[in-house]
């Protein structure tokens, strides 16, 4: 009986070890609303109609419903639609922060695909909420569901590292 319980505990431990980040990903998600308008704030902006590209700089902030997307600089490409400039992709660089009321993801760069409703955060990615901190190199945020998913790179050194905490008070 003791042997059975020991084997069961070993199995549970191994399962948790290999799936902790998957469980954390499942538990952690951003609050999103793709039906809300995009509100953009920046110090400067330029539009180049010939190159079909533009840029935003100086404390750039994009807000859509409960989700905030901030960076020092953003560049975007758009299609040559006569009635409306349709933004295809947006690239954020330097000090990228994606946040909700109780969750924050930071990284070096980010790519926002407007058509696919997803943001890919790249380089030194850290996701934090009140209980958990996850680190990795590439994070996919699905803006329709708010779900996050760390994507494994070919480089095996870029493994996801997670810290699961029960509560703030117990840690102290």
């Amino acid at each position, binding site marked *: 009986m003791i042997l059975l319980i020991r084997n069961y505990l070993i199995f549970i431990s191994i399962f948790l070890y290999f799936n902790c980040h998957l469980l954390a990903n499942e538990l952690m998600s951003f609050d999103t609303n793709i*039906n809300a*308008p995009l509100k953009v704030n920046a110090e*400067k*902006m*330029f539009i*180049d109609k010939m190159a079909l590209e533009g840029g935003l700089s100086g404390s750039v902030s994009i807000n859509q419903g409960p989700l905030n997307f901030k960076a020092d600089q953003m560049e975007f490409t758009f299609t040559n639609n*006569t009635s409306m400039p*349709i933004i*295809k992709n947006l690239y954020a660089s330097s000090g990228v922060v994606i946040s909700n009321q109780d969750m924050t993801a930071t990284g070096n760069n980010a790519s926002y695909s407007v058509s696919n409703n997803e943001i890919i955060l790249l380089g030194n990615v850290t996701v934090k909420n009140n209980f958990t901190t996850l680190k990795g190199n590439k994070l996919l945020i699905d803006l329709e569901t708010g779900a996050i998913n760390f994507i494994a790179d070919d480089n095996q050194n870029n493994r996801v590292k997670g810290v699961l905490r029960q509560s703030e008070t117990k840690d102290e």
Partner: protein
Amino acid sequence: MINKDIIQNIRIKRLRFILPLIALVIIFLIIFQSINIATTKNDKNLNIILSEQSNEGVLKPSMIGETSSGQPFILNALRASPLGPDLKDIELENVSIILGNEGVQTISVNSRNAKYFAKNNIAIFFDDIVSKTSDGYDFIAQVVNVNLETGFTFLNGPVQGKKGEIEFDAGHVEIHERGNKIFISSGIKLIVPASLIQKIGEE
């Protein structure tokens, strides 16, 4: 008598030098003025067509020209009156300007009042300004400065802009290179409606 003759002779000798000098000065002035008129005509490449004249200025004036980059422009107003004594600077009422080639890309500015400064070749528009580009950008600004030498348009704010369903507010907007480049600065707040984002997703 001898003294008087001597004095007269001296005067005549002086006049022999003074009169040709005066003549030379007059000739020089005439030549200088004609050169000056010729250069101003070629310099600016501007033609002012005056349709009707009144005592208080010019009614329905029209200015046709070209910027240094070859961008044509036409400036029309309901009335023009001179600003200052040298009659070079002009004050305009109910004025409009169209920069650029029809069918390619044009920028238009309409306002209740404007001033044209010949020295800098700049037109400053103010009061009830509406500015548009032919590809659908609309702007409302406090003051618009159009440099007729370069063709650059500077809109000072607060500036309200619109392109289709996208609306924005900014402090300053610059339109460069025949309207192909737009620089927005001094704080920009832009709103993209959700319906447009959904359209992008569908396309």
